[in-house]
């Protein structure tokens, strides 16, 4: 049921991609997103596809899992494509009926947008699939460190993210528990119109909120008891080091970027 959500889940597998430094992985993902937007021809799309597929293969994550991550985005992708098909003006008209026109640029745009969105979702879900939440927030904290000079609380942001990520499974579990309990008191979450269904969720949401506040309070006390006082002067258990895998991944990323940019500039 609720636990079927794969977006943002981490799969603990032993692979090369898993071993890349989280800082590098986050930066590479950002880079990858920019590069995906540069793609606009068969060659460049082919290159992006080749790159993405090789990363998936290297990460040892099943293709079905990756495809599953597209499921929640499918609606957005389809809507974007449809809007592009019908609302792009162009000279070369492929098909028209009364005021509806489908132009060649429209179709091309639609395919472009759909492909881009697919690659974006695949790329960013690979980041969370292959990086444990702790590593991810560690990486983010390190990357935000330079901004702490201008007053950005990088450690606090990372800590909040860690805690939020840590409690997602707990909250899901608890939601399910409360739902089953209310179901056994005759609650019905599956039938009725949207307003009725939203109302049926009240007996689930109120206890969930109350328990969350209580838990947050307890957690804060527990952290204070262990002398937590923010990021200042705090050392860490795992010190991130730049290793050989990171060097390789950097080279591959550079080659990929150069290829994409040259093809883009040359308009191939």
């Amino acid at each position, binding site marked *: 049921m609720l636990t079927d959500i794969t977006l943002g889940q981490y799969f603990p597998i032993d692979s090369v991609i898993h071993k890349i430094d989280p800082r590098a992985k986050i930066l590479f993902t950002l880079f990858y997103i920019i590069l995906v937007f540069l793609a606009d021809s068969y060659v460049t799309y082919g290159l992006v596809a080749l790159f993405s597929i090789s990363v998936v293969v290297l990460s040892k994550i099943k293709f079905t899992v990756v495809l599953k991550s597209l499921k929640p985005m499918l609606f957005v992708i389809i809507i974007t494509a449809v809007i592009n098909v019908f609302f792009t003006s162009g000279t070369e008209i492929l098909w028209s009926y009364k005021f509806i026109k489908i132009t060649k640029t429209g179709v091309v745009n639609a395919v472009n947008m759909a492909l881009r969105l697919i690659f974006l979702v695949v790329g960013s879900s690979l980041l969370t699939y292959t990086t444990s939440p702790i590593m991810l927030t560690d990486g983010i904290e390190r990357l935000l460190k330079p901004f702490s000079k201008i007053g950005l609380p990088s450690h606090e942001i990372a800590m909040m993210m860690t805690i939020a990520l840590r409690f997602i499974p707990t909250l899901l579990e608890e939601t399910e*528990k409360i739902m*089953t309990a209310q179901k056994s*008191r*005759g609650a*019905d979450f599956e039938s009725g119109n949207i307003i009725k269904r939203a109302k049926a969720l009240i*007996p689930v949401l*109120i206890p969930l909120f109350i328990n969350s506040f209580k838990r947050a309070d307890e957690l804060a006390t527990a952290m204070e008891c262990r002398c937590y006082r923010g990021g200042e002067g705090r050392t860490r258990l795992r010190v991130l080091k730049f290793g050989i895998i990171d060097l390789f991944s950097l080279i591959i990323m550079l080659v990929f970027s150069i290829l994409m940019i040259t093809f883009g500039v040359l308009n191939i």
Partner: protein
Amino acid sequence: MSIKVENVSFVYGKGTPFEKKAVDDISFCVKKGEFIGLIGHTGSGKSTLIQMLNGLIKPDSGKIFINGCDITADKVNLKEIRSKIGLVFQYPEYQLFEETVYKDIAYGPSNFNKSKEEIDSVINEVISLVGLDSSILEKSPFELSGGQKRRVAIAGVLAMSPDILILDEPTAGLDPAGRNDILACIKNLHEQKGMTVILVSHSMEDIANNVDKIMIVSDAKLVSFDYPSEIFKDSEMLKNIGLNVPQVTRVVNHLKQKGINLGNNIYTVEAAVDAILKYVKEES
């Protein structure tokens, strides 16, 4: 109301790396009016098993009959079954949500379309059944003490007037007084209203003091389903699956090893007191 379970199995997360067998080919039969104790380790499949009994979890294979009606069949009216089988979850006080105790207890019966008058009378009945004063009805459930909350939550289930009551560790986290109150209330329901009760517990003492028969679940399998006298005879078997006989039975067994034979089948404090008095009398 009788319960009949036939070769029921259930696997969590089928086809994922997190696959886990929770219930493995379990069959048993509970007659109307019986008081059953269900014991087993954390993760042994107890909770899954009891959730199957009112259709919250559908078994992968096997059949469950409640009063002869197969609840695993398609198109069965689960809502009706749920009103007949009251399920009190672990820490039920976390499900309280309404502004007042009255409204919270009324949630169950109003889901089953009971009339206002019916709800009124049933609430007055259950609030005294769980040993609370009716002045509590207008209070917010969140300002009550832990034990009171627990009782309100149990009242919320009782208000559906179930024929079978299943309780998952109803005494967990309560102080001894609260514990005894809850257990006395459950015993009372069983004796006076003839309710079929299934009590899940970790405490051998709670089980030994109350139930007619004991069901032991270990590693997703039903290990034993028998009278307490039979179950507590075999303390080795219980130890092997990480459980134990009640404290007082352990004392009696120790005494036996030291040459003081008080007899068999002693698993409540009362029985032990009687046996010791009898022994002392005979010796002198």
